[in-house]
């Protein structure tokens, strides 16, 4: 295979999204102005003002953004370029913008920025562009102009406290089902449900019981083999994911985090361990908890990467035979820029795999997967746009491949979803796994 092929569809701006289009149809310039000014007055302050007043329009953030790099350096996709098209204009016009403007702002904020915060490391002033785009999303939410699929997810969150309309019985039943499946392999395996006083509450995102139940299975095997005293709840609050954080529905975001942490408190666990998901970590670690006035998570949250690190370091799981295919590693924004887990992740990868090939750039500087920040949740209408918006990731993966990498490890659901599409679309022909997949495969298990 040569260089990744560039297939650009200029159709991306003509994408039909009923959520946005119908939302726009309900608006009037007067309503727009009213809502914008009300929200800005009530919810923004020194940060917005200082960031906008400090930006010297130098363009240095541009090369941080995978959208910009993937769109042949089109300035409209640069971080500051997106800010210019949205919040600058809103502030300049004091909210007197029309429906078309809001339509574009919604498209930019929800589908052309993953809030990955890489640009904060390229702006000399450390201007938090993800925060500025989040304000635009908040405004769009308050105006009712959100991508349909994302909004539906937000509705699911509000009605069921999980992301995928999973009903209370379905959740518990899927745990029983995975327990039973896994008992075929390890007869005394148990997924303890509602075990008060366990050491750990293992929390996951709703796509796991819904589509990727094998991840629960694998986690159960790892937990059981390592002798971890864990439990999973039988009540809402089991899901740690949070698309409301990304649509801008902070009130429901808070409700979700409250349910999650209060479930941990009710179960009297010492900490929460969560599966390989990035955005959920962001929401429990430094976004959702803050909205509720918890300065730090009231019950500590350990991400799977760090948890695997502990298990391997303490020798609680042993590797029967190292994974022999050469691997590369995708550093997810929310646990690397968001939690500095890159070194622990490398410890885990080195402990599991024969050969590890770095992607470049890596660690805090890794390129975003282009799926996070709610973008993949904007659904099928934006799929091609999302894939084409990350040509640079294909190039980065391809470079790792030419140096021998056959497998990509992505310890985050969004990264996983994003990379899966990129690998497929650009014909990269690489395998894609979670860390848990590999641990499960190569760990020593009781016979």
């Amino acid at each position, binding site marked *: 295979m040569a260089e990744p092929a560039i297939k650009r569809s200029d159709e991306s701006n003509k994408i039909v999204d009923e959520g946005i289009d119908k939302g726009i149809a309900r608006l009037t310039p007067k309503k727009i102005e009213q809502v914008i000014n009300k929200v800005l007055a*009530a919810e923004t302050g020194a940060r917005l003002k200082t960031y906008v007043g400090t930006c010297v329009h130098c363009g240095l953030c541009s090369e941080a953004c995978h959208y910009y790099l993937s769109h042949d350096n089109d300035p409209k996709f640069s971080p500051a370029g997106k800010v210019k098209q949205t919040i600058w204009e809103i502030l300049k016009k004091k909210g007197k913008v029309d429906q078309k403007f809001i339509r574009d702002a919604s498209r930019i904020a929800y589908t052309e920025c993953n809030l990955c915060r890489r640009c904060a490391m390229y702006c000399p002033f450390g201007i938090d562009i993800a925060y500025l785009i989040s304000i635009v999303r908040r405004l769009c939410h308050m105006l*009712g102009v959100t991508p349909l699929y994302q909004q539906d997810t937000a509705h699911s969150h509000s009605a069921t406290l999980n992301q995928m309309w999973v009903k209370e019985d379905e959740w*518990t039943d899927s745990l029983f089902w995975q327990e039973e499946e896994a008992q075929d392999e390890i007869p005394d395996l148990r997924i303890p449900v509602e075990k008060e006083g366990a050491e750990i509450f293992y929390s996951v995102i709703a796509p796991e019981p819904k589509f990727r139940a094998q991840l629960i299975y694998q986690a159960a095997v790892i937990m059981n083999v390592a002798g971890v005293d864990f439990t999973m709840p039988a009540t809402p609050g089991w899901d740690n994911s949070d698309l409301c954080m990304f649509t801008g529905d902070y009130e429901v975001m808070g409700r979700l985090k409250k349910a999650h942490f209060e479930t941990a408190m009710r179960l009297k666990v*010492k900490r929460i361990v969560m599966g390989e998901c990035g955005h959920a970590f962001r929401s429990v670690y430094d976004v959702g908890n803050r909205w509720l006035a*918890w300065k730090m998570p009231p*019950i500590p949250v350990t991400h799977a990467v760090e948890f695997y690190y502990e298990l391997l370091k303490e020798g609680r799981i042993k590797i029967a035979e190292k994974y022999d295919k050469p691997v590369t590693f995708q550093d997810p924004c929310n646990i690397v820029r968001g939690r500095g887990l890159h070194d622990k992740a490398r410890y885990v990868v080195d402990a599991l795999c024969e050969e590890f090939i770095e992607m470049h750039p890596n660690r805090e500087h890794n390129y975003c997967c282009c799926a996070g920040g709610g973008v993949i949740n904007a659904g099928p209408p934006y799929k091609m746009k999302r894939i084409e918006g990350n040509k640079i990731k294909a190039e980065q993966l391809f470079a790792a491949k030419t140096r021998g990498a056959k497998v990509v490890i992505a310890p985050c659901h969004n990264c996983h979803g994003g990379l899966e599409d990129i690998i497929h679309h650009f014909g990269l022909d690489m395998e894609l796994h979670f860390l848990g997949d590999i641990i499960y495969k190569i760990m020593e298990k009781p016979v």
Partner: protein
Amino acid sequence: MHNIGTWDWETGKRLIADTGKWKDMFDWVEEPYVSPDGERIVAVVKTGEMEYSVCENDTPWESTFDKVWYLRFGPDNRLTALVSSTGAWTVAVDGAAWENTFDFVWNTKFGADGKNITVAAQKDMEYFAVTNDIPWETRFSALSNLTISHDGKRVAGVAPTVKIKQGDIFIFQEGCYSAVVDGKPWDVNFVNVWDLAFSHDGEHVAAEVRTSLYDYTIAVDGVLWDKIYTSVWMPQFSPSNGSVTAPVRIAGKWTLAQDGKLFWDRSFAQLWHHMYSPDGKKIAAVVAPKYGRWTIAVNGIPWSLTFGDLVTDAVFSPDGNRVACIGKEGGKWTIAVDGKAWGEKYDMVWQPVFSPDSKKVAAKAEKNGRYTIVIDGKPIKESYEALWNPVFSPDSEKILIKGIEGNPDGGKYFRQVLPLTDVTG
């Protein structure tokens, strides 16, 4: 707890079961549960290939099931379990299964005297509640927030009342949910309905509702407060006058409102889990007086003691004059009573318990993997492998301690009644 006066309050220690032996008797023993009076200790055990039962005081039930979970004792010391046989789920009470079976049951709830047992159930993808083996006649496409009245006679939940397809966001936003009381939905729909609360007499239900994506308020028996807020938390009925109060969010701060009017004159960075004293004269709530600091406010006035991590499980004394809660600071847990924290810090503490005369507070606490009971800040001498919440005698002079001594393999479960003079000097 029910009929507490009839329990055995004779001072002394009694071996109830040699739980350490259970591991030899069964391939599979789950974590034990103890009845409120401490007379029974039970656990889910495996009695054969794909065959589970409940072991009670060293003896398994005669009935076996494909799966048993959610062992819960009612206030009257009856034991319930959620059981399935050949794919059909039901409730077993002291080993006797209900006649009706379902595709799934969960969320067992008890009325104050334990007579009324309610679960949420699903059959043929339809959802409803079942009380004492009697299911609701009406069924819904989902059911959540199952809530029972004080006596357990009435049951409410939240259910979709308009058929909605996934992805139809605009229909959702018109309002497709309502509260359902004893199977009968309110005749008004909301975008969302969350926590419900029954009035003390069980006659009325109040609910947190969202009437659009942005407008939150409280609905009482389906009638909205005339004020809207940017968010609300769970409402409560006053036991004395039947008014409804709820934490409400105004301009980014939380305060307490009563029947749609501001009730407390100060606001907080957070305010939730408010509760009435038994006489209804006082309200206490968990609050954050400033960002990242947590405490209890009584009638709107916060304690000066605050915790950085969290405050939870607050409880009023029976006379309504005292409040105790769990507080956590720097990863360590303790109990605070009336604004003063116990000196000792623990790895975990459980909800504190007041004596009937309101003078003493006891709590289960964990340190270095061992459990003990702490009374007014002082731990009792013994520590345990497993322990359940203590109970004060009706005359407040004794305390019932239910604990497993020894290591888990050789553990023995004792029921012990201690005079308080002994333990606290």
